[in-house]
């Protein structure tokens, strides 16, 4: 269990504000801080890691106090068990993949398991300069996990990758998280990514947490009435006559929806969409 209840004065686009952050994350959970840049997401990561000191409050991880203003407790950065993955993979350029991971590991016998888990077995003797962006992020993830962190902090980890690679690494991260159960916080401004990975979202704006809930609760449009609403992901957009056919994945199913030009105009592959119809339209048949 992670409990953060801190106050920190930060500079935002609309001036200085006292950011009051109250975040609770269950052990093994995957939560996301979502919001525009400058909303204060990265500041929360830095407060957790001990890189920035709060003005007041308490940070407790699995019952251990990392920070407590009143009782003058401030565990130093190197004693806080945080694993980090940033957008720019900070790997040691002179070390091989294996050495990079080994260097950070607390248990050398896990290194090969981690290399396999991130699919880098074949490339374990290469140096970072000879790896693609996606491969480097795999190594960065394995290295962060090798330290057996109490909490894994991911700050826009896939933002610099192309859409396909981002998609692949998101899927792999999901599998790894399910397997290892490391409590994870993801900073992201990508709704699709948050939907895919997080089970709890803190939406932030100008240093204030504006919404807390599951991705569905936080992102689903509640401005339209109706009892037949789902969120789906756009797999394909095809022109058909003077209309468009959208192929959508909804839950584990794939379906098709006819859209007009004005609807299809601002929809691209990978977008999250609200699919709704009047409750009068669907027909049901026993199966």
């Amino acid at each position, binding site marked *: 269990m992670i409990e953060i209840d801190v106050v920190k004065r930060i500079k935002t686009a609309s001036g200085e504000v006292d950011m009051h952050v109250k975040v609770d994350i269950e052990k093994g959970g995957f939560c996301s801080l979502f919001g525009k840049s400058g909303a204060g997401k990265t500041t929360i990561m830095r407060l957790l890691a001990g890189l920035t000191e709060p003005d007041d409050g308490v940070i407790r991880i699995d019952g251990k106090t990392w920070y407590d203003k009143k009782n003058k407790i401030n565990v130093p950065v190197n004693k806080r068990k945080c694993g980090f993955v940033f957008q720019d993979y900070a790997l040691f350029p002179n070390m091989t993949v294996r050495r990079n991971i080994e260097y950070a590991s607390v248990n050398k016998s896990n290194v090969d398991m981690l290399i396999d888990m991130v699919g880098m077995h074949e490339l374990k003797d290469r140096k970072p300069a000879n790896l693609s962006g996606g491969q480097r992020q795999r190594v960065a993830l394995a290295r962060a996990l090798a330290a057996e962190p109490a909490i894994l902090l991911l700050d826009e980890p896939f933002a610099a990758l192309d859409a396909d690679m981002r998609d692949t690494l998101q899927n792999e991260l999901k599998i790894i998280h399910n397997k290892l159960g490391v409590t994870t916080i993801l900073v992201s401004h990508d709704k699709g990514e948050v939907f895919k990975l997080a089970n709890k979202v803190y939406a932030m704006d100008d240093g204030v947490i504006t919404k807390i809930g599951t991705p569905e609760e936080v992102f689903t449009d509640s*401005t*339209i*009435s*109706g009892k037949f609403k789902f969120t789906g992901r756009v797999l394909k957009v095809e022109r058909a006559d003077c209309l468009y056919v959208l192929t959508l994945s909804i839950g584990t199913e794939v379906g098709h929806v006819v859209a*007009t*030009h004005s*609807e299809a105009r601002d929809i691209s592959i990978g977008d999250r969409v609200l699919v709704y119809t*009047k*409750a009068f339209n669907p027909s049901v048949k026993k199966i």
Partner: protein
Amino acid sequence: MNQLEAKVLHYRTSGQIILCELESFGAQVTAVILDSPGELEYLKEGNALNILFKETEVIIATGEIGQLSLNNRFRAKITAMEKGDIFTSLAIDFGTGMTSVITTKSAERLGLAVGTEVTALVKANEIAIGRRD
């Protein structure tokens, strides 16, 4: 999706079904929805909201309309047409714009062209309501 501004005149409920009487740019609109009035904070008499309905559910008629069960009738004029092999998309105006998608076969049978006066018809159960932001 057609999205038009409308004003709530009144509404009544039967179980979970709500019948809303609305007015949109001078046209009377009836919408039947399945929802809980308590959850729709914008459903109040006199309130402005959006009515939403799919373009492919807008029926087009010309000339005199005989006896029809349809309540929602918009006297409109065609302002633009996009003809496909199978479907034709019509931009129509009755004080505000909406779109209707009908078969090209029907558009030709009715002799539709830009400027033609038509009546657009929408079934009450095809109209959803939404908050106006």
